[in-house]
């Protein structure tokens, strides 16, 4: 069971109160983009075993979107942060590096 603390309301919400929104920090390719870029935006996902950044919505709570960093293999949660973050903030990166010293970093 996954428990994520919603940064918008502060509730430690378990999985059934949340709705998953897939990979975070996707760059959107829309009108005018090449077919390859648009296809990548729609379908290409990192799908890593290990550190992953995801979008979640506190659907049965405050209703807001937020982002989370967790390990897909162990379900360990490194932290949650605001949806308005273009990339993982330094404190999240630091929390991951503290637990996964050989992690290659966000790219």
């Amino acid at each position, binding site marked *: 069971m996954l428990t994520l603390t919603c940064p*918008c*309301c502060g*509730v430690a*919400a*378990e999985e*059934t109160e949340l709705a998953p929104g897939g990979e975070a920090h996707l760059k959107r390719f829309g009108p005018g983009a090449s077919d390859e870029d648009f296809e990548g935006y729609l379908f290409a996902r990192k799908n890593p075993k290990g550190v992953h950044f995801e979008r979640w919505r506190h659907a*049965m709570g*405050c*209703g*807001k979107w937020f982002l989370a960093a967790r390990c897909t293999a162990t379900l360990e949660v490194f932290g949650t942060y605001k949806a308005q973050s273009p990339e993982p903030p330094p404190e999240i990166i630091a929390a991951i590096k503290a637990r996964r010293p050989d992690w290659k970093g966000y790219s």
Partner: protein
Amino acid sequence: MSEPISALAGKNAEGFARVSEAGLQGMITLRGNLASAALAAAVKAATGCALPGNRGIHTKAGKAAAWMSPDELLLLVPYGEAEATAAALEAALAGEHALAANVSDARALFRVSGAKADQVAMKLCPVDFARLPQGEIRRTRAAQVAAALWRSAPDEISLVCFRSVAGYVFDLLAISARTGSELAPA
């Protein structure tokens, strides 16, 4: 004029706790910038309550102001006052990016009372009730549907849900409260 009637017209169930549909309750959804002084003043005028902080609910003389999300409040007022209060809020917030809507007839309110009222809700909601103090409102789910609940008295939980699922929620609460199904029999 049609006669207002609450979702389940005050239906009751008795078990190890008492479950009641609370009848007509005025409810106003207020969305806007919670950091705005005009909004805080309008909430004070409408309910007598100061603006609640994150997950807070303030109660005063039968009215309440509850924090629902970073840009949303739920205001409780007597049913007969809801329409006028919503209009007064709209007027007070003219020019602000805000919305006040009377949602009284779109919601249902339940009260679960008794020394073991917690246990009724505990079976239905993924909430740590040991860490839910009085004065806090918790939006969550009750089995399959969205709900918001708070401690309205030492041995009483109030729960709001959408009117369209009132029958479902009443049955959930009533079954959860059945005598003999206590989580930790004394």
